[in-house]
Structures are given as C-alpha cells and as structure tokens.
C-alpha cells in the first residue's frame, strides 16, 4: 500500500510547526539520492516560485464616491488610461496601458507607485446624469485614500515558455528582451525546476482557491489563466515543451511590496509588470513526490525565431543547458540570458518555505480543479485584410 497524506494531515503538521518544507530546487537535489517513495515520507510541502514579467496583470480599484457623485466614464491615473466601463467609481488599470504622452510610463508603474505609497493623479470624465451629476474631477489618490485595491491578473505563471532568438540581420526589441541579429543571443524566462506549474504539470493540487504568495502577501488562484492550454506536447518526463497552462491570481494590493511587484519598460515594446508568485505544493503521494523531483535537464522547451513572422521553431533545449549560459541551435553556439529573476524567485520560495515552517501559511485543497483537454483558438478576420 503506497503512502498517502491528506491536506488536513499536512496542515496539522504545519500548525504544530512540524511540517518538512523544501524548495523545489532542494527537493530536486534530494531526488538524486532518494526515490519518490522515500521523498513522500520525508517531505510534506515543496515551495515553487517565479518572478517574471507578466503582461496580463492589473488592479481593480474603487476610488470612493465624490460629492456630488460622479459616474466615471473615462479615467486616467497619472495620465495612463484606466477602464471606464465599470460602474461609477470602480476601475481596472491594466499593467500594459501606457500614458500616450510618455509611453515609458504605464499601468504597471501606476501599480508600483501605489504599492510604494505614492500619490497618483486621478482624472475622470463623465457625461453627467440625474443621479451622477458631476462631469469632471482631478484629484490625488493613494492606497490609503481609496476603498479597495485588488491585484487581479488574468494570466500569470506560464507553465514553461519558449526561448527567443533572432536569425535576422536586424536587432529585434521584444518582450523577451533585446535580441541581437544573427542569433547572437537567446533569452529564456522560466525558472526551470523552481517554476510553479512545472512541479505539478497535471495541476492535481493547483486549482480554484489555491492559496499562494502573491507580490509579498497572501493571494489566491481564482481561475485557470487565459490561454489555458492542456494540449501542448509533453515530453517523457510529463512536462509540456512549450507554453501551456496558466493561472489567474488575485490578492490585496494594499498588502503588497515593490520588492515583488515591479514595473518594467521594454524598448520599442512597451510596459509590463514583474510579478512575484510563490506556490506551495503538498506532497500527497508518491506521484506528487515524483512530479516535484523534476530536474532542469528534464524540462525541455522550444526555441523560436522571434525575428521572423510566425516565430518558426528552431529546435529544443532544456533548462540545464539554458542555465549553463550557452545552448546549441542547429550547430551554432548561442549565448543565453534569463529575462526573469531566478534570484528573486528563490527569495520567494524561501520566504514561502519559512512562512509554512512557522505555521503562518496553511495549504488549501482546490475548491474545483481545472479543465483538461483545452486548446487555443485563433482570431480569424471576417472583414478583410490588414490596412
């Protein structure tokens, strides 16, 4: 009979301060000596983490009502357009929204400024109605002055991601960083064996309601992320070899820290937000112990040419090679660089580990598990070609 543990048994150990918690890198090292059957008996929780640019992020804000009240239909924060189609004084500020007068400053910077306690200029326009007569306001807000501030990111923590290189003769500026001509560099973004969704590739323990570390505080997985794709080809070690599943996450922006929520600007691309996510994985049975034991050399990913339309596939590599600083693409030695911070991801995995060891962070069973058999649709044009 194989060894099994329930969430409640693990949480009881956490409450007593007796839970054995390792980071995903630590358990991968342990797995060189021990089998999954031994690991499930010794380890209760494995912490995973990532700290990378996640464009599909943003914050829901409620400003509070003015006197007389106003139905804000067009809204800017420090000049950055925020959504006006959300009742009277609610908005969603998307991380990649940009100030048209200063495209290097966007929604991500507004979010970071708010997190850092700075005041932000709110400007809003409405047509004026009988119940919301006010038509214009210009004022200053901060996290202290407004009602709710909730980070809600529709697509984060991609399960694996492509490596980007550029075979053309021109420099390419992308969200995967600056790609030099003639395949002189190759950039990758996933934290390898520390990456959350690669440690539970079938999403057995990650679902709706999973409690996580988000931006320096407690957050939750609320839904499968957009573009959630379980149909990507998996390798012999059970992990998808390109970008596959994602998670939608939520948390209280007022409790977050700019250590783990950082605005970014990519030359000739635009604004994005670095988000710190830590995800604990309960070692319920041998299968989970086996999954978290995965090592960098077993996690493969696909190399794409970001310089060419359609991003053609150039080959495959793995995270041991990527982290070594050089990969081989069709016989060419190419220098690699990460574009997400493994140092920060490790810091998050360690912080989450400590919270669990100290009995401050208990694990949650998913309220509902994620769908399987999902794939992506393309957007087709019905009204003629590009103008």
């Amino acid at each position, binding site marked *: 009979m194989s060894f099994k543990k329930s969430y409640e048994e693990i949480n009881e150990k956490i409450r007593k301060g007796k839970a054995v918690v390792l980071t995903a890198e630590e358990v991968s090292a342990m797995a060189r000596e021990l089998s999954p059957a031994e690991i499930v008996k010794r380890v209760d929780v494995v912490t995973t983490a990532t700290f990378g*640019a996640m464009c599909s992020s943003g914050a829901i804000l409620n400003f509070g009502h003015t006197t007389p009240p106003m139905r804000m239909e067009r809204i800017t924060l420090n000049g950055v357009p925020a959504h006006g189609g959300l009742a009277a004084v609610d908005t969603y500020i998307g991380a990649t929204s940009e100030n048209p007068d200063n495209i290097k400053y966007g929604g991500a910077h507004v979010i970071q400024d708010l997190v850092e306690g700075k005041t932000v200029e709110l400007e809003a326009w409405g047509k004026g109605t009988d119940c919301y007569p006010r038509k214009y306001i210009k004022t200053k807000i901060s996290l202290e002055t407004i009602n709710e501030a909730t980070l809600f990111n529709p697509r984060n923590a991609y399960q694996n991601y492509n490596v980007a290189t550029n075979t053309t003769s021109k420099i390419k500026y992308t969200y995967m960083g600056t790609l*030099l001509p003639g395949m002189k*560099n190759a*950039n990758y973004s996933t934290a390898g064996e520390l990456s959350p969704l690669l440690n539970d590739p079938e999403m057995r323990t990650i679902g709706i309601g999973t409690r996580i570390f988000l931006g320096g505080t407690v957050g939750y997985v609320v839904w499968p992320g957009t573009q959630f794709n379980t149909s990507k080809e998996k390798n012999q070690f059970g992990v998808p070899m390109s970008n596959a599943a994602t998670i939608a996450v939520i948390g209280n922006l007022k409790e977050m820290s700019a250590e783990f929520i*950082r605005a970014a600007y990519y030359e000739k691309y635009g604004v994005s937000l*670095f988000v710190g996510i830590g995800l604990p994985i309960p070692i319920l049975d041998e299968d989970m112990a086996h999954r978290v034991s995965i090592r960098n050399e077993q996690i493969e990913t696909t190399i794409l040419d970001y310089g060419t339309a359609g991003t053609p596939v150039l080959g495959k590599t793995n995270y041991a090679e990527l*982290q070594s600083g050089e990969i081989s693409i069709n016989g060419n030695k190419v220098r690699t660089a990460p574009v997400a*911070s493994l140092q920060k991801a490790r810091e998050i995995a360690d912080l989450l580990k400590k919270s669990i060891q100290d009995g401050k962070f208990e694990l949650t069973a998913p309220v509902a598990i994620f769908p399987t058999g999902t794939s992506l649709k393309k957007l087709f044009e019905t009204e003629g070609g590009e103008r």
Partner: protein
Amino acid sequence: MIEVTRRYVMKFPPDSADKALTYKLIKDYDIKFSILKAEVRPGRTGSLLLELEALPENIQKGIEYLEANAVICEPLGKKIKFEASKCINCGNCTGVCFTGALTMDRERWKLNFEPELCVVCELCVPACPMNLFDINFHEEEPEKIAVGN
C-alpha cells in the same frame, strides 16, 4: 613595476584636432593604447574611449599631460551609472553585453558588473527593463542657435 590596463573616456576640446596629443602618449610615456570607441564631431568636442596599457606612473603622467592640454579624462567606471539597489537580477542586460562586462553569477543568479570590460556600446541602456543604466559617453551640448535666419 608591472604594466596595467586602464580604460578612460576622454573628451577633446574642439581645437585639439591639429595637436598630436595621442602621439605624445606613445612617444613620451610609452603607453600602448587601443581606441575602443570614438565620436569625433568637427568643430565640436570629440569623445574617445581609450584603453591604456603601461606602467601605472606613466599612465598617470600621460593623463596629466592630456589634462594640461584641456582634455577631460575620466575613468570609464565613472561614466557609467548603474542603480544597483533597484536591480532585480532579471538578466536582460546580460543578453546584449557581448564583451562580458555584464554577466550572471550562475550560482546565486545575481548580476555581475565589471565596468572595466565595458566598451560603451550602450546596448544595456534600452535593454534594462528597470531603466537602471545611464551612460554618458559624450555630454550633449545644446544645439548652437544659428546666427541670423
């Protein structure tokens, strides 16, 4: 005494074009030098990134000689500003740094920055998503206003 290698950014005044300043560095101070980057704009200042290789005392004398001739000499490290405290160690800058001045420490995954290896290509400036690099190779002078119109 052993020879050392030092990199300097030198700003030459507009009227220096007819002086054999760098020749003197070789002949009188026995300095080997390589020009790593040059921006010469006739009638205005010129900027050079020079790598000097010589005995330390000769480098010092050479620099004193240039400074006596109105050349502004600054060690390369002083021309590159990097806000290390805001760095998140993402690694984006290491992807474009072909000289190896910016590399990742592959144990701790922190950024290593060795300004002495920099050739002021300035690719890291736009590559850093946190905008932490500020390289001032040549100070832009305000455009001269044309007389008459």
